[in-house]
């Protein structure tokens, strides 16, 4: 064990962890909107809309994240037409390719989490609203969405942690996130164990924080 290397690589890895956090927060931000939108589409009574949302979540949950990020990064770049369009300014950057892949992926999972939360809302809550003469629209925005979000907190916390670990795949498209920098240090020191232990420790610490924030939110917004 090379303790000196572990200590000297810590600052570099910590600043790389900021890139990881940026990727994570951007993906979660866009993913939450995508998830909410598709959860609402999923409970739609229109068969076409419903099927469209179902196929989206089926495809993105049914294929590996690595494949998705490769298709978006290396795959789309093969299409001549795309490279001459305005989309290329976004797709040219590995950072945005990673965020698009992550957001679409976490969006699919989030839509399923929110959908099941919508469907398990007790009918009594909605009926109570109706009996007070509140309009359907307000019931949806002020009762169903907040209750569904609360219901899905534990599952969503899990999704955040999974996504946080998923961001390590950003290193496969040249981004210098926590895993990317760890690999870079290994490429000059040839000591994978030491460096990956430190990187793993940082991931674990981030999980610890996310876990506790979710636990706090669960308690704060508990129904009791």
């Amino acid at each position, binding site marked *: 064990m090379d303790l000196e290397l572990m200590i000297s690589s810590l600052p570099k890895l910590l600043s790389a962890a900021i890139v990881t956090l940026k990727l994570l927060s951007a993906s979660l931000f866009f993913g939450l909107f995508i998830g909410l939108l598709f959860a609402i589409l999923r409970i739609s009574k229109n068969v076409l809309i419903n099927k469209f949302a179902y196929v989206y979540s089926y495809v993105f949950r049914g294929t590996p994240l690595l494949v998705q990020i490769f298709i978006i990064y*290396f795959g789309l770049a093969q299409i001549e037409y795309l490279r001459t369009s305005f989309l290329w300014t976004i797709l040219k950057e590995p950072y945005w390719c990673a965020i698009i892949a992550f957001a679409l992926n976490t969006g699919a999972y989030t839509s399923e989490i929110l959908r099941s939360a919508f469907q398990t809302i007790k009918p009594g809550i909605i009926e109570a609203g109706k009996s007070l003469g509140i309009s359907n629209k307000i019931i949806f925005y002020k009762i169903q969405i907040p209750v569904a979000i609360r219901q899905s907190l534990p599952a969503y916390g899990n999704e955040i942690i999974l996504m946080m670990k998923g961001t390590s795949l950003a290193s496969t498209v040249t981004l210098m996130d926590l895993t990317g920098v760890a690999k870079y240090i290994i490429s*000059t020191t040839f*000591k994978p164990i030491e460096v990956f232990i430190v990187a793993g420790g940082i991931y674990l610490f981030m999980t610890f924080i996310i876990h506790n924030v979710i636990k706090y939110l669960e308690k704060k917004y508990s129904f009791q």
Partner: protein
Amino acid sequence: MNIFKKTILTVLASLFLVVNTNADNIKIGTEGAYPPWNSKDAAGNLIGFEVELANELCKIMKHNCTIVEQDWDGMIPALVSRKFDAIMAGMSITDERKKTINFSQGYADEVASLAVMKGSKNEGLKTLSAINLTDISADEQATLDTLAKAFKGKTIGVQTATIHQNFLDSGLMGKVKVRTYKTQDEVNLDLAAGRIDAALAAAVAFTDYAEKSGKAVVLTGPTFAGGDFGNGVGVGIRKGDSKLLNDFNAAIDKARDEGIISRLAIKHFGFDASM
């Protein structure tokens, strides 16, 4: 003996066999993604200059060799942790690597070069045709300055953990943005897609790609050797494994004398890259 005991013993015996590599059964690690040094055919079989050379060297050493595949960025750690006994993966002999592993004498050498897409502003740069970084002359420094000016702030792609990355990181070419890739294939893809302004690798890696893909990748600037680019490509061997090191050195001598290395080099590179 009951079946349970039997199974346990078989498992233990097989573990024992894996750990104790017989001196005459050696495993050689290669990347299989760096043509023409080493690559894979459509069926997934390892092919290329080093695969054929490894088989020839093993014949001379009278060792039983198996060639195994290993991702480039884990090559040296895999050798150190005994996943295999020797590296033949277009790995240049550098001082940095020598801190961790030993190298046999070099068996082949070829130069590195920058590549850009046809039509790039930096196509056909006016520089020396070749520079050696071991002892930089005034003319060579002028060429480096030209390159630094031409590529200032540009993004250059390289495969990770290579001599090419070390050279760009050293700052001899000034301030460029270095983007690292897991394989040379990915560097080529992004160069062709226009995500990076230039790429640096073995010159043959680009000419090989241009020929096979039909993409307009062209070499530019000088060819590089010496300094960060090391002293030829050799067989990487664990420190302390001196018997294998001597075997390889003797076999390379013999293969060179018999013209085997030259013949294979001409076959795969199109020129005599042997040394």
